[in-house]
């Protein structure tokens, strides 16, 4: 059983985000990137499966670029068996194009399960798992909080809103969007990462499928407009007055 984990670097929200001069994109020159939190959970779940003997291989994949080596060495230090960076020719200008490129790389690598974080700060629509699955003609289950593998099938626990859980059975290969691993993502000690840097090698893949122009056009990007602020009321009577003025009491 071979699991591929797709790792994405996303803008670190600890920094203030700014819009660039075009008014249509983030100013990435000032941004610090970090590994997407949900992807850390995807990696953790994959490593747990390996530790439980339900998976043999965990391959960490990420787009080649600044910081990608650190992401991959850290994944290896945590327990991934192999790490590869994906060289992408051209630019993915929306999450659908990006997902297709990832699907191409995943296909080239080959695996029984593809795990990704359910969403990311720059992709709240959570489309990576479904589009990768559609591109590869595989089943997809997203918002997952637990996976058990037995032979060629997987039991998958999916979370719905309102505290409802469902258990699915999926034939492998399948694409899983991880919401949360069964335990918090582990910490990779610096000395372990350094040791891995000296001994392990990072492989490479490439993806170049041309999808034509993006079907999405960004018209403008701006921080949310500031509200007029809140008014502090002194008593219940004041509240009643406000409600009366609004005609609701």
């Amino acid at each position, binding site marked *: 059983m071979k699991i591929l984990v797709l790792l994405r670097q996303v803008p670190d929200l*600890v*920094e203030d985000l700014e819009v660039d001069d075009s008014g249509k994109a983030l100013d990435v020159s000032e941004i*610090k990137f970090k590994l997407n939190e949900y992807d850390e959970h995807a990696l953790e779940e994959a490593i747990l499966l390996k530790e439980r003997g339900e998976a043999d291989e965990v391959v960490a994949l990420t787009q080649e670029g600044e910081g990608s080596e650190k992401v991959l060495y850290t994944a290896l230090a945590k327990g991934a068996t192999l790490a590869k960076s994906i060289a992408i020719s051209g630019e993915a200008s929306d999450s659908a194009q990006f997902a297709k490129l990832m699907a191409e790389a995943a296909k080239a690598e080959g695996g029984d399960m593809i795990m990704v974080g359910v969403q990311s700060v720059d992709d709240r629509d959570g489309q990576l798992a479904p589009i990768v699955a559609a591109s590869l003609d595989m089943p997809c289950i997203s918002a997952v909080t637990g996976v058990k593998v037995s032979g060629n099938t997987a039991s998958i626990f999916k979370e719905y809103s309102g505290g409802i859980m469902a258990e699915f059975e999926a034939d492998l290969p399948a694409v899983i969007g991880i919401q949360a691993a069964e335990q*918090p993502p*582990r*910490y990779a*000690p*610096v*000395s*372990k990462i350094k040791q891995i840097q000296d001994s392990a090698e990072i492989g490479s893949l490439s993806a170049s499928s041309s999808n034509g122009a993006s079907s999405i056009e960004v018209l403008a990007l701006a921080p949310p407009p500031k509200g007029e602020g809140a008014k502090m009321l002194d008593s219940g009577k004041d509240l009643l007055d406000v409600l009366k003025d609004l005609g609701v009491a």
Partner: protein
Amino acid sequence: MSEHKYQDSVQLEQVIVDGMDISGHWNKMFVPRALTQFDISGLEQLRDIPGAESINNCYQCAKCVGSCPVEYVGSYGPRKIYRKLQIGTNLIEDDYLWLCTTCKNCVRVCPKEVNMGEIIPAAREKAVLGGFIPDEIQEMLQSVSEYGNPMGESARKRAKWTKPIKDSIKNLAKAEEGESVDVLWFVGDFYAYHGRGNDAALAMVNVFNRLGVDFGILGEAEKTDGDSQRLVGESGLFEDLANHNDALFEKFPHKDLVVNDPHAYNAIKKFYPGITGNTRNVTHYTQFLSSRLDELKALMTKSFDKKVTFHDPCYLGRHNDEYNAPRELINSIPGATFIEMPRHKEQSYCCGGGGGGMWLDGLVANYTSERLSTNRVREAVETGAEVLLVCCPYEVSRFEDAVKAVNAEGKLEVMDIVEVINACIPEG
């Protein structure tokens, strides 16, 4: 049983006393329990770790237990750790490993030189490599490796606290290599990011300025000193932090390297040299200011008419033997009456924040009746003091929380010594 000294004693098949059958099997109740019956592989593993060998010296006199700050609010101490090891505990995988605050009070009284100050970080290093890390510590380590501070704050905002300063401050983060200052001031995480730490940092700037000190800060380039990371066993991260900060010390020539955090003082003085090969002229701010006491006294003309007491930080006192510098400053505060707490100087009680304790409140709470800082603040309140003075940036937030916990709000104030010094200097 045949070789035992009780072998000749009479063994009855059945014993009936007052009509009650108390017959039993010849069992462990009647023979001394042999320690070999327990699995001591955990103990053997621990004493094989470089740095942790002295655990083997313990002969269980228990002097340490009476001195252990965690024992005051729970059940702990090196002797109890040793006992657990004897009966089969593997410390590396046990919560017990994380209760020690590395305050070193046990080391002070131990007749056998069992050095928990070395054993605990060595054992934790093994735990960290094996993945046995409490969640709270894991989160802290992740923040430090990502941002260079344990709060997970943006590294770029490390100098944001300087904004209220009217005159400019020399921020060397953007300066050319070789820019020199008399005092290179290592501000530290809590002064840079914590609200109450900011207050003390601004006071420090004013005191420097009024003394006419030529000083500079490392601003956004500075990273946490790493001592707490070393003490929770993340030696690789500590090494990176030491190399990073020391390269900055090298880059900007200075006469004195002043720190406000005793943990930074400890790390830079004792542990950076082993990694970087460089020795720095590092002084704690209480030492730096007490060396300028005459000038400082001339400036401190406003009276501070309050009863004050003082908490010795473990990493300035027991770890680095500095008890006088803060006291010299306190005794120079005009109008103040200084009352010592019963547990002071060498016997000072730990605030609970050292050795990673700052980030272990959740885990430690499972084993203690109250926070160590709460226990300490009770003692401060009992002295009748109105102000609890501190000179370690970890303590302001810990003790202010504790003041609330013991309902002493309005009765006891927590202040950094430098805040009081600054309050005694009139504007001008």
